[in-house]
């Protein structure tokens, strides 16, 4: 058997029904799918019957990790958690959540490429992976505990270095919007673990991940790659003017700079100019506390920045805020990023009074603790929007039993008191009453049961996109490209390839010049807010963004950082390197692949996801049943294609689909053709689709 670097060669399969634990040959079964989502789609395709429900024993949940996890390739250690996703309604389909942290790297050091969980344990268990020793252990004493305590208990048993991914009460209680969390990094899908009676997976690895290439060559590549890194989301210019910088952009997440501090560090630490040539300030350029809490509060309470294994760009703000302990009984220390913070504050309609910013920040901090301990996932913000809508429209008063309605501390809610969250999230985690069940259930189920009106789908502010999920970097971010990407998945799109490029912070002329090289025309991208009608280069960019997302999820690179189309380096004319993924892959594994060759593998993975979705939906009309945009895209905002308007026309989006399908080799219905699938090595998928009458 050939041996490669990167992969460990073994995939772990655990059947919780029988207790059988087996090691599979990664190369033999999954090499053509890399790992991560690629491996997981293949497992679901081969092994899980179409029509399986998320909480059925027949569902499988795959913790997919790829060849680059655990190596020094910057920004790896992401785990793709793929399963039949619990948040759909009435039908449910395949989807993936992603957590970062140090878990993926630890799994590789333990000698495993991925973990496939199947069956259902007869009573609560947790999975203990200590190198090649894998055991299913009793978790009855852990059941009912939050994630914080569960993690600590498992660390007490396995040792402090172990990395633990666990569910909280929400996952145990089969709340669809529940999370799996490792070290404050989230994935959805918690209830699938809960349905299998699996409380946690603890991993401790003492082995290694081999680099196939000569160590000097590898070092050279990594050093080169790091010069091209931007800040979080590959924003490549600073937010404020800096001595070294030709450009700046206030929207940039490159928030570190002269006079910008980690104010709660002891002593406070100035991030400094963060010149991109200074490799010893890479980890200082993203001061995310400022981004998530505003300059004053964020700077004052940031202890440091944290994040994932091997990632020098730190996007987790680690905050110290003593009143959390004094007022609410939670730890004064809290860490998270983006939605992990804003979940708590966006439960409220607004905050008022002179201390409104403090209340808002406290709601973020307290909300983070409650969500991360109960293991609640807020559906990328849709949960809060649904609550706000139901409150504002008087729906809650109508549908909640009187006793339940009265039991809710509305006085706290209306005064913007963060203490409201203590009651609010408990109801969701324990599925208490109509409110708790409704907010934890699949969004479409609740929207139907609570009787939301049509106007919910007609305003951008309610965030609804499709299939019970919100938009995620859609038309407001990249017009048609964002729309196409948001259509592709069975949950919110979780794709950042396009937004990383759109929001690099560079002037549009510079970005257009770079796009001309990468996509064949400067028309592949518009200046933000000055959208132009659809063209084929945007379709190319949308396809490229989609397949790169799958590539990252399969290699274990962070799609919140990659791909690096642009860089902060003036001497390179701000060009990044879109071949970095292929370069890492070639040197780490020893399998030489060009950018184009690796993109073909990514396209294979992307199409396998498409085929799986087509089989699950059992429709030939993917164009109108699956690839849909909500009404607000066409109805909310100023005249389409006028400056400042994000509104698009229906004709334009239909053209966008046509051009995108052409690029993908799909029919006008959105079905892959046999020729396309065979070109991608998916002849077997074409056979199965044909048999079902679903081949394009």
């Amino acid at each position, binding site marked *: 058997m050939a041996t490669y670097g990167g992969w460990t060669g073994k995939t772990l399969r655990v059947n919780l029904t029988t207790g059988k634990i087996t090691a599979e040959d990664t190369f033999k079964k999954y090499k053509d799918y890399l790992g991560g989502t690629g491996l997981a789609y293949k497992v679901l395709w081969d092994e899980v019957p179409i029509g399986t429900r998320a909480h059925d024993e027949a569902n499988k949940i795959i913790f997919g990790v790829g060849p680059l996890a655990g*190596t*020094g390739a910057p920004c790896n250690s992401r785990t793709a958690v793929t399963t039949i996703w619990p948040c759909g309604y009435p039908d449910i389909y395949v989807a993936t959540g992603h957590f970062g942290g140090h878990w993926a790297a630890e799994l590789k050091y333990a000698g495993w490429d991925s973990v496939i969980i199947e069956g259902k344990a007869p009573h609560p268990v947790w999975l203990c992976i200590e190198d090649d020793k894998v055991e299913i252990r009793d978790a009855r004493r852990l059941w009912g505990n939050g994630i914080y305590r569960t993690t600590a208990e498992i660390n007490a048993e396995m040792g402090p270095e172990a990395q633990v991914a666990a569910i909280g009460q929400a996952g145990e209680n089969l709340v669809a919007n529940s999370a799996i969390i490792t070290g404050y990094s989230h994935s959805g899908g918690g209830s699938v673990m809960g349905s299998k009676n699996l409380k946690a997976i603890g991993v401790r690895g003492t082995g290694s991940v081999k680099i196939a290439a000569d*160590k000097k060559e*590898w070092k050279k590549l990594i050093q080169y790659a790091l010069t091209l890194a931007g800040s979080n989301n590959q924003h490549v210019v600073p937010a404020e003017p800096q001595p070294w910088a030709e450009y700046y952009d206030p929207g940039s997440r490159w928030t570190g700079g002269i006079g910008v501090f980690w104010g709660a560090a002891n002593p406070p630490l100035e991030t400094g100019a963060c010149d991109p040539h200074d490799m010893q300030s890479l980890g200082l350029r993203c001061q995310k506390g400022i981004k998530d809490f505003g300059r004053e509060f964020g700077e004052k309470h940031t202890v440091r920045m944290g994040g994932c294994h091997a990632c020098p760009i730190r996007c987790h703000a680690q905050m110290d805020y003593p009143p959390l302990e004094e007022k609410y009984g939670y730890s004064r220390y809290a860490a998270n990023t983006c939605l992990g913070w804003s979940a708590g504050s966006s439960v409220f309609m607004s905050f008022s009074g002179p201390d409104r910013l403090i209340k808002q920040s406290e709601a973020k901090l307290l909300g983070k603790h409650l969500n991360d301990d109960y293991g609640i996932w807020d559906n990328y913000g849709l949960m809060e929007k649904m609550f706000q809508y139901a409150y504002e429209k008087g729906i809650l008063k109508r549908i909640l039993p009187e006793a339940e309605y009265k039991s809710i501390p509305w006085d706290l809610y209306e005064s913007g008191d963060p203490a409201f969250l203590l009651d609010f999230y408990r109801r969701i985690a324990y599925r208490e009453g109509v409110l708790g069940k409704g907010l934890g259930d699949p969004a479409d189920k609740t929207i139907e049961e609570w009787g939301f009106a049509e106007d919910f789908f007609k305003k951008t502010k309610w965030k609804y996109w499709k299939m019970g999920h919100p938009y995620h970097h859609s038309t407001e971010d990249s017009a048609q490209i964002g729309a196409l990407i948001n259509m592709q998945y069975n949950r919110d799109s979780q794709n950042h390839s396009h937004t990383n490029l759109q929001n690099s912070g560079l002037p549009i002329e510079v970005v257009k010049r770079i796009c001309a090289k990468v996509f064949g025309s400067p028309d592949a991208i518009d200046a933000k807010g000055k959208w132009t009608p659809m063209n084929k280069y945007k379709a190319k960019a949308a396809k490229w963004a989609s397949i790169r997302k799958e590539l990252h999820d399969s290699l274990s690179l962070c799609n919140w950082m990659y791909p690096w189309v642009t860089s902060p380096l003036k001497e390179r004319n701000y060009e990044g390197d879109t071949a970095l993924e292929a370069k890492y892959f070639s040197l780490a594994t020893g399998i030489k692949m060009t950018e184009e060759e690796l993109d073909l593998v990514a396209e294979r993975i992307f199409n396998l996801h498409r085929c799986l979705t087509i089989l699950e939906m059992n429709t030939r009309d993917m164009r109108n049943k699956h690839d849909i945009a909500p009404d607000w895209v066409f109805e909310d905002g100023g005249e389409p294609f006028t400056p400042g308007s994000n509104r698009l026309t229906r004709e334009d989006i239909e053209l966008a689909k046509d051009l995108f399908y052409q690029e993908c080799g799909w029919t006008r219905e959105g079905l892959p053709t046999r020729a396309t699938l065979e070109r991608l090595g998916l002849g077997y998928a074409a056979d199965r689709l044909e048999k079902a009458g679903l081949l394009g």
Partner: protein
Amino acid sequence: MREEQKTPAANIAEFFGVNRPTSRRGFLKLSAATAVAIYGANILAGSGAKAANGMYILENAKGVLVSDPTRCVGCRRCELACTEYNDGKASPTVSRIKVARNLNYGPQGVQFGFQRGEGKYGNFLVIQDMCKQCPHPVPCATACPNDAIEVKGPVNARVVNTEKCVGCKVCQRACPWDMMCFDEEIGKATKCTLCDGHPQCVEVCPTGSLRFVPWRDLTKENRTRQPGMLMFNDGCKGCH
């Protein structure tokens, strides 16, 4: 028996077998280690003559690694650089700079009230552990029954001579800071070599948390992680 009359062998046996608090699992591991220890102890007991010849007096190092934990963000790129650039593989276990073990809960490990402790699950402080390049008597070098830990220029780092190392792991027990590493894949001990004066961990640290500075004695000012050789080193006359 009075303390100074104990033989080094008795001291070592006591150290491994008696003085060290263990969990049940820890004890099982230790039982195996004790056998090795006794082997090592005999050699050490017989090495007095060698010591009298001055073979264990190692020249001081010229440089040492220091850290500012305030700046450490726990990305572990130092561990990766240590093993990828020196050994061609990523392996925190082999890494001669240690961050992972303190990352989650700090050097104290999981404790009641961990949320007020150190590390990612506490107050976020990440402590980096580095080799102190100890002055004479260098615990790892002194304990090594094969004299496999030697001084190597240009910066006089204490390094493992893999030709001589037989993989007995006595050095791992000897280091009070638990900084000796063992590479199971080659069956040899390994330790910080200061990369011949260009420590890779320092070069890759993305926050400037690590520095390579002129040597000074850090052994008196750093918390130890295990009793190590300090427990049974009964002064110069034990060896000289």
